């Protein structure tokens, strides 16, 4: 990997790592025994560990200039590996935390393993660790292929990828120490947030510079979605995390927002994190990997443009549906509700566009588990966007809010849509990227597919049942006008569903482990494909042996 960098680029990496290490040292010195100090040590370790990689190959010969005539795939490969590692970690924590709800003793009486700390470790692990790395890796792949241009940087892709992972590590270790801003999906404290801003702006600039190098006159729609993801996440992250630390030597900070404004900013952030982190970026995967895998162009390109702008502009206003029946002004609640319902149109336009692309290729869906991953992901996308619009309607929300129905809805989206489209994309991407003919085992892809689907269905049905039962029990009155059930009654009624949910999650986790094994064996043991062998730099073959670009 380092051998692909020139001497000046290696020097540049070493300097960046030195600066990072100094920042870690400052954090450790200022923070001392505060969690900030622990994080300082962690940053130093991170920087020293990576410096070892850079310095150990520092004096290796310079790479051939030929490499600039090839796509830059090393960061993508590392991104996929990191993504799968986070998937297993995040899903394992998920299964554990789900099991704690059924069997609370599984917290083992320790502070770090209590529900309140494991739960954000699960959400951060799967959303940012698994999803975020998958988005970064696939965006690097899609932007290069659709622009027919190499990434506009040698060091910056690594900075983005590894910097983002440092953020995730700071986040998760912080939770275990009890650090949180108490903002959902924005739990990490101020210094981690500042770091993410630097990483994210680098990402944005890298993406724009690569697009500027493109040969295609038109920017393919997948890139629009990735751009929306990058730009909007930057805006959301900055606005929601404006906070003042207690002191520079202290990890704790206080948000500048207060009261209902704070709630509105948080859920404007929270819902758009769903929209632009968990939807836009993954729609980008859909618009690229679905046509590639099915071998058919997207059904309607115009429809994809219309749904892009629909999704972008409607989602921005939907966040307030998280705050029905609160102190938030009624008209703002109405606004969020209306836009949420309208969102169904562009969402279903995207889902319909994807399904119509498959029209005429249904035999491939039957035979190819990878394409089936993508297809079922589209179905779950259609299902959960419908459910989302429905739950955003105020009277429906009065039944569903605070119940497991919300949890079921999120997981229909996160497991059924986000994770399945990611696995489908990875199974398409891995053989291409490592120049293999195929995945190591088509049978294991099949096994993974059924584990993932069964896990998702078990999970979602369990949560639908328990959510609706909870909602009904909480609003049932006796003839005397008092509540018929106590909270504990509803908790006891949840017991079988909580076991089912942990079991569904376990199936899903097993599927992810099977995927890791399959990807590992593909990289290690599947022979290089003849047609793709030509443009591999390490074999020393001249890059010109590949088919000429045009």
């Amino acid at each position, binding site marked *: 990997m380092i051998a692909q960098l020139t001497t000046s680029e290696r020097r540049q990496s070493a300097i960046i790592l030195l600066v990072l290490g100094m920042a870690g040292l400052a954090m450790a010195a200022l923070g001392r025994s505060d969690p900030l100090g622990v994080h300082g040590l962690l940053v130093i370790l991170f920087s020293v560990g990576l410096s070892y990689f850079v310095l150990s190959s520092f004096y290796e010969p310079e790479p051939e200039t030929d490499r*600039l*005539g*090839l*796509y830059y795939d090393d960061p993508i490969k590392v991104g996929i590996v990191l993504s799968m590692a986070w998937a297993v970690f995040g899903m394992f924590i998920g299964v554990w935390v789900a099991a704690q709800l059924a069997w609370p003793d599984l917290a083992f009486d320790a502070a770090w393993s209590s529900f309140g700390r494991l739960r954000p470790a699960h959400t951060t692990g799967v959303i940012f660790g698994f999803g975020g790395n998958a988005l970064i890796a696939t965006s690097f792949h899609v932007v*290069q*292929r*659709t622009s*027919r*241009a*190499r990434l506009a940087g040698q060091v910056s892709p690594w900075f983005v990828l590894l910097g983002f992972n440092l953020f995730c590590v700071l986040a998760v270790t912080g939770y275990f120490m009890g650090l949180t801003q108490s903002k959902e999906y924005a739990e990490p404290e101020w210094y981690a947030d500042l770091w993410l801003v630097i990483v994210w702006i680098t990402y944005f600039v890298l993406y724009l510079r690569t697009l500027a*190098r493109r*040969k*295609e*006159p*038109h*920017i*393919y*729609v997948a890139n629009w979605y990735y751009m929306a993801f990058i730009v909007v996440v930057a805006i959301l992250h900055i606005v929601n995390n404006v906070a003042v630390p207690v002191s520079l030597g202290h990890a704790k900070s206080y948000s500048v927002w207060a009261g209902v404004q704070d709630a509105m900013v948080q859920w404007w952030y929270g819902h758009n994190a769903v929209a632009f982190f968990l939807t836009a970026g993954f729609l980008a995967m859909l618009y*690229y990997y679905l*046509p*590639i895998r099915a*071998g*058919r*162009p*997207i059904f309607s*390109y*115009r429809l994809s*443009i*219309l749904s892009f*702008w629909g999704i972008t*502009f409607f989602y921005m206003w939907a966040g307030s549906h998280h705050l029905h029946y609160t102190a938030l002004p009624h*008209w703002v609640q109405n606004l969020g509700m209306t836009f949420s319902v309208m969102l169904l149109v562009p969402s279903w336009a995207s889902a319909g566009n994807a399904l119509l692309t498959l029209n005429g290729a249904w035999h491939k869906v039957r035979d190819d588990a990878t394409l089936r991953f993508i297809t079922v992901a589209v179905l779950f996308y259609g299902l959960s966007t419908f459910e989302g619009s429905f739950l955003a309607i105020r009277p429906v929300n009065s039944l569903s809010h605070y119940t497991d129905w919300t949890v079921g809805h999120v997981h229909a989206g996160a497991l059924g849509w986000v994770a399945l489209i990611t696995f489908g994309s990875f199974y398409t991407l891995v053989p*291409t990227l490592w120049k293999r003919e195929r995945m190591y085992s088509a049978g294991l892809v099949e096994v993974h597919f059924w584990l993932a689907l069964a896990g998702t269905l078990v999970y979602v049905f369990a949560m639908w049942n328990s959510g609706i039962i909870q909602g009904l029990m909480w609003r049932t009155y006796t003839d005397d006008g008092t509540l018929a059930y106590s909270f504990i009654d509803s908790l006891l009624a949840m017991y079988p569903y909580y076991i089912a949910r942990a079991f569904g999650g376990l199936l899903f986790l097993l599927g992810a482990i099977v995927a890791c094994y399959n990807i590992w064996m593909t990289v290690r043991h599947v022979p290089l494909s003849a047609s*793709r062998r030509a*443009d591999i730099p390490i074999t020393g073959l001249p*890059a010109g042996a*590949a*088919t*000429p*670009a*045009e």
Partner: protein
Amino acid sequence: MDLDHDTLVAFSKSWGLFYLIALSIAVLIYTFLPSNRKRFDDAKKNILDKDDTPWRR
């Protein structure tokens, strides 16, 4: 003029509506402009090309 809650509500309820309508019209024009047809068709098909090297050396 005071920039209070009601002012902002009035602004968002009027101009907020107008700019969203203007945007949708702009997007519709862009999408269906006949001169864009070829570029969209090319974009749709070109991603399926098999070659796997960037154009710039």
